[in-house]
């Protein structure tokens, strides 16, 4: 059914599709591990996508665009933090509000700035992240088996893809090998204990939400300035929610998050490549493939395959004294 080159192409597509999921998933991981549920990943990615494209277009530099995207995403993350940490509001409602705010604001501002109907003009040249050719990719592409893997699959992505995959061991190290990580995880499980130890719960949670903003910003910038050449309204198209599904699927752990995102990306890539899959008489329609990430998440949540236990203090605003 699939020859080697086709497999490489599908995996290449998997990497591209999994990268925004992975960044958003890690963003959610920091936030939720610190006890702040965040369903506003989608909204943060969307504002980042818009501002990165807009600033990259105006300045002609994609790096300024990336910074603007991260800034905008952090602003919304700060808003979420203000609502759910400082004012102890409902984290889910704050997240929903952020999604609505992002969907409306991006189109409104885009229309006001560019008058192109809620989109940014097309980016070209240095206003886009261009693919990076890894050294010797061209020379090695002739080597059987490993050549195509190196030249097609590993090489030729934009720098943000490599950053996303490096963020996985980075996150693991930060969470499990540093004092900050220990405290961050503790604040999601038992904030009272952290408080008793004299560490600021509010400070740690704001830090987590801030990191979440940075990662969502990179994810949005990747969509608008690396995969695409500009912003189109609602271009995140539900990726923030698939990332949340991946986070639950991975049971809030970094390495597993990467595999979950790759799996979901792979399912998408397969669905894009083959509309209907014929398995010896049984035809799997493309809709099943599109729905699989959600189905798998429900299966996990229902406890059929291990148990997904969220951080214990997740969703609870911390009140020092009652």
């Amino acid at each position, binding site marked *: 059914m699939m020859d080697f080159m086709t497999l490489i192409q599908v995996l290449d597509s998997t990497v591209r599709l999994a990268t925004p999921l992975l960044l958003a998933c890690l963003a959610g991981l920091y936030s939720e591990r610190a006890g702040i549920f965040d369903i506003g990943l989608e909204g943060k990615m969307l504002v980042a996508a818009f501002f990165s494209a807009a600033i990259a277009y105006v300045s002609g530099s994609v790096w300024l665009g990336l910074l603007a995207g991260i800034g905008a995403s952090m602003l919304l993350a700060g808003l979420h933090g203000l609502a759910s940490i400082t004012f102890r509001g409902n984290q889910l409602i704050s997240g929903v509000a952020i999604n609505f705010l992002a969907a409306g604001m991006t189109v409104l501002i885009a229309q006001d700035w560019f008058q192109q*109907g809620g989109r940014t003009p097309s980016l070209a040249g240095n206003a886009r992240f261009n693919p990076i050719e890894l050294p010797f990719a061209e020379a090695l592409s002739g080597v059987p088996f490993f050549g195509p893997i190196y030249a097609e699959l590993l090489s030729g992505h934009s720098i943000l893809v490599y950053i996303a995959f490096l963020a996985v061991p980075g996150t693991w190290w930060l969470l499990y090998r540093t004092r900050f990580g220990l405290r961050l995880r503790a604040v999601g499980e038992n904030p009272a204990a952290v408080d008793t130890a004299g560490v600021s719960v509010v400070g740690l949670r704001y830090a987590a939400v801030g990191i979440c903003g940075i990662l969502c910003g990179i994810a949005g910038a990747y969509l608008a300035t690396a995969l*695409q050449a500009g912003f189109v309204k*609602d271009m995140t198209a539900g990726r923030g929610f698939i990332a949340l599904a991946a986070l639950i699927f991975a049971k809030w752990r970094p390495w597993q998050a990467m595999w979950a995102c790759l799996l979901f990306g792979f399912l998408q*890539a397969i669905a*894009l490549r083959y*509309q209907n899959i014929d398995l010896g008489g049984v035809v799997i329609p493309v809709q099943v493939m599109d729905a699989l990430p959600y189905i798998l998440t429900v299966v996990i949540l229902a406890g059929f395959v291990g148990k997904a236990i969220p951080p214990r203090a997740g969703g609870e605003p911390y009140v020092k004294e009652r």
Partner: protein
Amino acid sequence: MTLMKSLMGAVASFALTAGMALAEPALIFDLGGKFDKSFNEAAFNGAQRWAEETGGSFREIELQSEAQREQALRRFAEAGANPVITTGFAFATPVEAVAGDYPDTKFVNIDGWMPEVPANVQLIAFQEHQGSYLVGMLAAMASKSGTIGFIGGMDIPLIRHFGCGYAQGAKAVNPDINIVANMTGTTPTAWNDPVKGSELTKAQISQGADVVYAAAGGTGVGVLQTAADEGILSIGVDSNQNHMHPGKVLTSMLKRVDVAVYNSMKAGADMETGGFTVLGLAEEGVGWALDDNNASLISDEMKMAANDARQKIIDGDIEVVAYYTNDSCPVLDF
């Protein structure tokens, strides 16, 4: 007091007559959004042209969710707008439901279908398969690899209708041509997912396609972009999209929604209703775009062949099978 009363009465009746005289047309855009560079934007351009030519003004609303359809229709009808023009097949059911309550208001729906058309409703349908047939021919003639692609937006019969005409046109030129057809998705987000459009294009390129036809609203922006980046040709849809990547968009399948909206607004409250208007090649309702941006891509031979086929379809010598006829396509499986 009496003076006040009569004054009020005068003001009220004046306001009423003013309201009657200024029966503005209203235009409701579907979920794709007013500036989708495609279907809804064409409707907007038609309305804009009418406004500029007549100095009139029109009311408009861009829908944000499914739930607003009936509400928007009722609001415009209550406010005295006439005619109320809606774009998109999904409006057929709400229009049918609302029309009976406002017998004096004329409703227009583009792309919709109803079993029985109420007396104050006019449905406008386009022969998209005819226009797609012509761009399919052009695609097959421009293709060097013998493989061409089709990328649809949301998987609905209308979009299959586009794809089916395209495949028939391509097969007419080259019976052995290989057509790769993909749909972006099954929910309305499929109209606005350029990232997925790009991936689909890359997947089709890796299967050998060197011309891709995007009938996918905002998703098409990603298709055209990737096609331009990867150095293959693309075909735009609904509006003329040749200018988006000059020299890299082979042509665009024009669906003159703008003409339909313009004509409806021009006819105003007196327009004929109670039936179907079908706009095909003969009425210039559909066609293919040729301008400075793609002139170098279309050889004289291609132009002649397309114009020849156009005439034959109008004369009935070539019959393009509509997907709707038996809910399947003779030359393409989806």
